[in-house]
Structure formats: C-alpha cells, structure tokens
C-alpha cells in the first residue's frame, strides 16, 4: 500500500511517499511546499494536500500520516537601548571620506563672509552655496590668519589644493549653520590611513583649550567619541557634551520554577538570559505595555488565541531568547548626520499550546485525497526516528532541528524520548544581519545569511571571502562592479554596504553563532540526561538551516568542548537533513 508521511513545520510542509509491501518499505518520492496558515491549525490542510499530491505524482494514496504538530507562534522584537546626544553642537565627528590638509588648527570660529574683519587665529566656517574657487580666494585674500576651515559641501580637498599653504579642512557638514561662531575651536585632520591624536585624547583637549582637571574630566566623553576618526572638530562651548544615554525600555517579567523575576530590557542580553536561567523552566513572560518587547509578547499571545480559540489568559510564553546587537542610528544634535552604532536587544519569543487541532486537519486531508489519514506521532520522536535512518547512527541519539521560527531538540534512548522547543532561529539571524549592516532589506539580509561573500575586483574576477580568486570567462554584469557581493546560485548579487567583506563576514558569523550556537546548547541541555551535554554522544542536525554552509560547523565548534560529536542528518542516505519527520512517521507506523 502507498503510505505518505507529512511533516507540517512552521514554514515548510514536507511529504514523503513510501510503498509498504509485507512490512518492507520502499521510499519513492518527496515534496516540499510552504506551510499554509499557522502550524497545527486547519489552515494547514491546503499545504498538506498540495505537498502530498506533488510527492505522489499521480499515484493514489492509501494512508496519510500527519505529525502531531502543535501550533508554535514565534515573535521577534528589537529594542534600541542606547542613544548618543551631542549638546551645544560641541563636536563634529562624522568622519567624511575626503578631508583636506593635515595637522591641527586652533582658533576662533568666524563665518567666511566676515573673514576680512577677523583677528588672531581664525577657523573659517563656510555655509552651503559657496563655490570652492571662491572659498579658496576669500581665504587667501582676506588677510585673516586662517588656520583651519569647516565646510558644508564636499570641497575640502578642492579648497586645500588652492591655498598657498594647506590647512586642516573638515567638509560635508550638513548643518554647518549650527556651528557656534565666535568661539574657540580646534580642527584636526590626520594623514591618509591614520587617525587623529590630539582631539581624541582628554589631555590633548586640555592642552588645546587650557582646561583644568575638572573640565578635563567633563570633556573626556568627547575625546572618547572621536577616537578612531581621521578628522574632527571640537568647539569649546560653555557646557557642550556628548553623552551616551541608556534608553529605558521597560522591564521583562519572567515567571518560572515558582519564582517571578523582573529584568530591565536595557540591561542587555546577558542580564536577561541570566535572569531567565534563574527561573527555568519558564512558565510565562510578559513585557511592559507601550514597548516593542511588550507589544510583541502581547501580540504573540493574541495570535495564539485567534488560532486556537484558547483564552489569552491561558496562553503561556514558553521561551525567550535575548541577543545583543547594534543598530546604526543618527546622533541627536549632530551637525553632519553622524551615525553611531547604538546598542540594541533583539528578543525572540515562542508560545505553544497543547491543544491540537490536527484531527481536523487529518479529517480534511482524508476527504480531499479520498483515503485514510491518521495522526502519526509527536514530531520530536518522529524527527529522531527519521534521523536514525542516517547511515552511521544508533540509539541513544539526540537531534537538533534548526528551523525558521524555533530551534528544537529531541533525545531518544532505550528508555524513551523527550523533546523541547526554544525560541530563536533562522528568522532572527536574518534580522540581526539586516540591522547590524543597516541594509533595511530582508532579501539582501537573507542572501548574506545563506551565501558566501566575495569582492568583485574586476569584470573578470572576484576574490572570495577566503581569499581565493575566481576568474570568469564572460564579463560580470556592470551592477556588481567593485561591490561586495553574495555568491548566489543565480550569480553574484551586490550587497548595499560600504563595509569590507571581512566586516560583513564577521557580522554574518556572529549572528549565526549568537542564535544557533547559543540555542544548540540551550536546547540540548534541556533534553540531555541530567542536563549534562557530556552524556550525549551523537547529535544529528536536521532542518533547513542544517543545509547552511557554516551553521553546522559553528554548532560543532560550540559542542566540541563538551565532547559531543555532531553531524548533518542524511535521511535514508539520500534526503540530507530534510524529511526526517515525514519518514519517521512512516517508519513508526510500519514498526507498529
């Protein structure tokens, strides 16, 4: 008879067809489709039927086995927890690409059209609308002792090249009209490839402005903010400052193991996860109303209510994962659109319910296909069974299923099995990559996640992220020239970033590690005997993300210190890490 196993996941529904003759199983087809509706609800019927039909490819089924998929709703929110503010327009630190001259100039800020009447060392401040030729002419002919300049337009090199002696010039200052005039200021530009030494040093500032010890201490955040810049401007204002402010974003309330703990979200991921550890196993989590995190947790609960009919009060958030990340944000009070990397916390949450509506799905599938349909078993168990068809595996065996919305672990020993789901998976990785690289484009972030990087160095060759060079017989398309690209199956796709390949690669690997490596440990600890990873021998990786080119290796690296060997599943020796649950359902049924 023809038996079809169907695994309904959060994002994909997989079907596996087998013909069973006298207890012998012969697998003959698989198919993959997008899950329709929320996993574990009657909406899944369409996707299930579609996948089964595709896998059958014209044959008639006798029996369809579905997994006991309980709805899992996952949610994701990001909260920025720091903010940089410059007061009194006291500094300019946007680090333009082409400043002029080099050295440091200290003087009084004077507008360029008032240069003729300036006395003493002067810093020319030039608004928008001045042509670079005229700026150079005015500086040269005014008779003023101009020691540096600050420009609105991107003209620093042009102006410098037209002066008799070069002076440090900082340009591209968008809000140059906010530069305080008539004040003591300093402009410093370092030679190409180098960084400033004076304005990024508290004592340097003290020397330049003649500060006493108290004032020096007060001005040190400015020095710190300018560290690493090639150019900078500091204006000595009465109480100008740059502060890195923590933004209060409310508390997260975690309940579990008979305790309730509160933690400030702006305390950061480590603090949140440490608090979570103290209340494991988590019973419920709530956030503060009016915050992103609070809103997300409430929404996840509401969606579950809509889907299952279970009252919101009965729904529990079973797991959260907090990850530290950075979000580039414009600095408040900046004069040149300065962008600072602000701290942020990304929170993934997961809610599940024991109420299953899979019987409805089974009934509808049976009707649509004209055959019997049964609920086969709990997916954790089925996943393990499927994983066991990987050549070289044996009981006891642990399985790590890396999905889009959650990371799942299961353990099968001679005594029985256990399974667990934790929040945070592929979607969170994409979100982290998107925000840290300021791509604002999910498609690109996905591509960065999935494919290795390269730099297009000419129309005929790229340098891969591992340093090797690849040549092409046909010229590459013009839109990838000189860009950092992802090597997708359709060809190189540009990444809209000014960062280097190394930087993007680092962000990508860190994002995967922060989510998958961390979650691998978290999930496995919960199924491991006595919570000890050492007692696990084999871990098989399953799921879409197990196909990723580096996630398995990152997880293996994280597990190695605990003496755990892991490898990618190869269901039936042919399907790779896919279709484990679907095949597991068939196997379980046959062996009954």
């Amino acid at each position, binding site marked *: 008879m023809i038996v079809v196993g169907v695994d309904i996941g959060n994002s994909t529904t997989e079907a596996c067809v087998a013909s069973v003759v006298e207890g012998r199983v012969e697998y003959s087809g698989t198919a993959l489709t997008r899950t329709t509706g929320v996993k574990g609800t009657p909406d899944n019927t369409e996707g299930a039927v579609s996948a089964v039909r595709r896998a059958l490819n014209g044959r008639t089924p006798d029996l369809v086995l579905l997994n006991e998929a309980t709805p899992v709703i996952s949610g994701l929110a990001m909260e920025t927890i720091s903010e940089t503010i410059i007061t009194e327009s006291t500094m300019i630190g946007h680090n333009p690409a082409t400043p002029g001259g080099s050295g440091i100039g200290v003087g009084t800020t004077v507008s360029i059209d008032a240069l003729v009447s300036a006395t003493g060392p002067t810093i020319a401040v030039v608004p928008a609308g001045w*042509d670079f*030729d005229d700026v150079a002419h005015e500086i040269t002919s005014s008779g003023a002792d101009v020691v540096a300049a600050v420009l609105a337009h991107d003209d620093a090199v*042009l102006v410098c090249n037209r002066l008799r002696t070069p002076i440090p010039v900082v340009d591209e200052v968008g809000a140059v009209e906010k530069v305080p005039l008539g004040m003591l200021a300093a402009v410093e530009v370092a030679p190409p490839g180098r960084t400033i030494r004076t304005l990024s040093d508290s004592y340097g500032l003290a020397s330049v402005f003649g500060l006493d010890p108290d004032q020096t201490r007060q001005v040190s955040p400015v020095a710190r903010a300018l560290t690493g810049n090639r150019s900078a401007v500091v204006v000595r204002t009465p109480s100008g400052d740059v502060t890195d402010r923590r933004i209060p974003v409310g508390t997260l309330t975690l309940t579990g193991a008979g305790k309730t703990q509160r933690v400030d979200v702006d305390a950061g991921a480590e603090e949140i996860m440490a608090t979570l550890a103290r209340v494991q196993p988590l019973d419920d989590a709530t956030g503060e109303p009016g915050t992103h995190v609070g809103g997300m947790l409430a929404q996840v609960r509401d969606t579950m209510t809509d889907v299952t009919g279970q009252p919101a009060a009965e729904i529990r958030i079973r797991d959260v994962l907090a990850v530290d990340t950075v979000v580039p944000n414009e600095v408040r009070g900046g004069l040149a659109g300065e962008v600072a990397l602000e701290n942020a916390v990304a929170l993934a949450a997961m809610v599940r319910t024991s109420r299953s509506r899979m019987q409805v799905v089974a009934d509808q599938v049976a009707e649509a296909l004209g055959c019997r349909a049964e609920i086969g078993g709990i997916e954790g168990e089925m996943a393990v069974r499927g994983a066991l068809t990987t050549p070289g595996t044996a009981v006891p065996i642990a399985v790590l299923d890396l999905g889009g919305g959650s990371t799942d672990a299961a353990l099968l020993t001679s005594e029985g099995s256990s399974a667990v789901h934790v929040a945070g998976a592929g979607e969170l990785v994409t979100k982290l990559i998107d925000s840290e690289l300021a791509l604002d484009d999910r498609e690109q972030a996905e591509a960065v996640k999935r494919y290795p990087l390269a730099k297009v160095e000419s129309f005929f060759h790229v340098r891969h992220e591992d340093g090797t060079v690849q040549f092409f017989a046909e010229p590459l398309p*013009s839109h990838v020239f000189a860009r950092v690209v992802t090597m997708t199956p359709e060809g190189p796709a540009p990444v809209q970033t000014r960062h280097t390949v190394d930087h993007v690669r680092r962000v990508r690997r860190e994002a995967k590690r922060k989510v998958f490596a961390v979650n691998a440990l978290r999930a496995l600890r919960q199924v491991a005997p006595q919570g000890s990873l050492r007692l696990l021998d084999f871990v098989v990786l399953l799921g879409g993300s197990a196909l990723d080119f580096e996630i398995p290796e990152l997880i293996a690296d994280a597990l190695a210190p605990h003496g755990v060997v892991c490898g990618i599943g190869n269901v039936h020796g042919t399907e790779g890490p896919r279709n484990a649950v679907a095949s597991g359902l068939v196997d379980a049924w046959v062996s009954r």
Partner: protein
Amino acid sequence: MTAPAAERSLTLKEVGQAQRGSRPDEVVIAVSPAFADPFTKTIVEVPHAEVIRQILAGIEEQGVHARMIKVWDTADLAAVAHIGARLSGSGISVGLLSRGTTMIHQRDLPRLSNLELFPQSPLLDAEVFRLIGSNAAQYAKGESPAPVPTRNDQMARPRWQAKAALLHLKEYECIVAGRRPVEVEPVISRLS
C-alpha cells in the same frame, strides 16, 4: 552656487593624439565632437565650462587625476565613453555628449553596457555632474560608491524629445570620420 553664478568659458586646447594612460589613478573624461565647440551648453543650458569644472572637481576631491580627450569620429555616447575607458589608466571613463547625456564606463564592459548611465539630459545639473565625477574617481580607486541617484520626469519627453533629436543631428554633423581621438587640456576662464 554663490549668487550670482560666476560666468566661465571653456576652451579645449589640443595637445596631441590621445594615448593610453599608465597611471592607475586617473579618470579619462571623453567628450563628443561638438562639445565646447560649436556647442557651449547642455540642453537645459548648463554651460559646458561648468559641466567640466564640476566633473573635474568631483575627481579632484577624491584625490584622483583627470585627463580629457575629444572623440571625433562618432557621436554615439557608448562609443565615446568606451574609447575613453580603453585609454584610461584605471579603465574608468566619463563620457559626455554636448547636450549633456553622460555615462560612466569601464574598459572590460561590452560597449553597449556601462557602470552608470544618465540618459535624461534635461535632468542633469551642476550638482549631478559633481557626483558623477566623484563616483568615477571612486570606481578608479576600486571603491564601491552608491550609484548617483537619478530623477525621473514623465513630462521630459513632451518638453525635450524634439530638441534632443535636433541637438543630436547637429552633433552628428560635426563628426570627422576616421580622425583619431585627441587629448585636450580644458582651459576654464572666468569672465565675471
């Protein structure tokens, strides 16, 4: 720019047959047969002096060198730009037609392709020409600048389609078939 805008004139002094450059930090600006003489401004009356001045400024600000050539035997923008790219030490060129249509080209690209194309000449002003020069210089340095943002105007066709056709025909008349490209020195003099 400073109001009132300074008036300038552009003369292209011929200095000899255009040769392939060896320095990798140069951008070649390649102009069409009628550029600067007899035409002196673009279709929307941006003076050629200002066009070249801004492109040169964009290149100079990036710390890159510029060299100019005049192409005589074609008025096809892609051909003009590609000839410039093949002569450029960095392989990067900016090609210009008298009416203002511009492109940034690279020597390994097919002639009909380009790095960046600015096909709507009526929408190009001094600021855009400066950015074009800047981007060309960044490509020459191996950097990856964000493409210069292009505007789109639906009513550009009714307004300018015919004048563009007319200017194109006039430019075609200035073609000297068979004459090799010439290196020129742009002399920009202030008139006011």
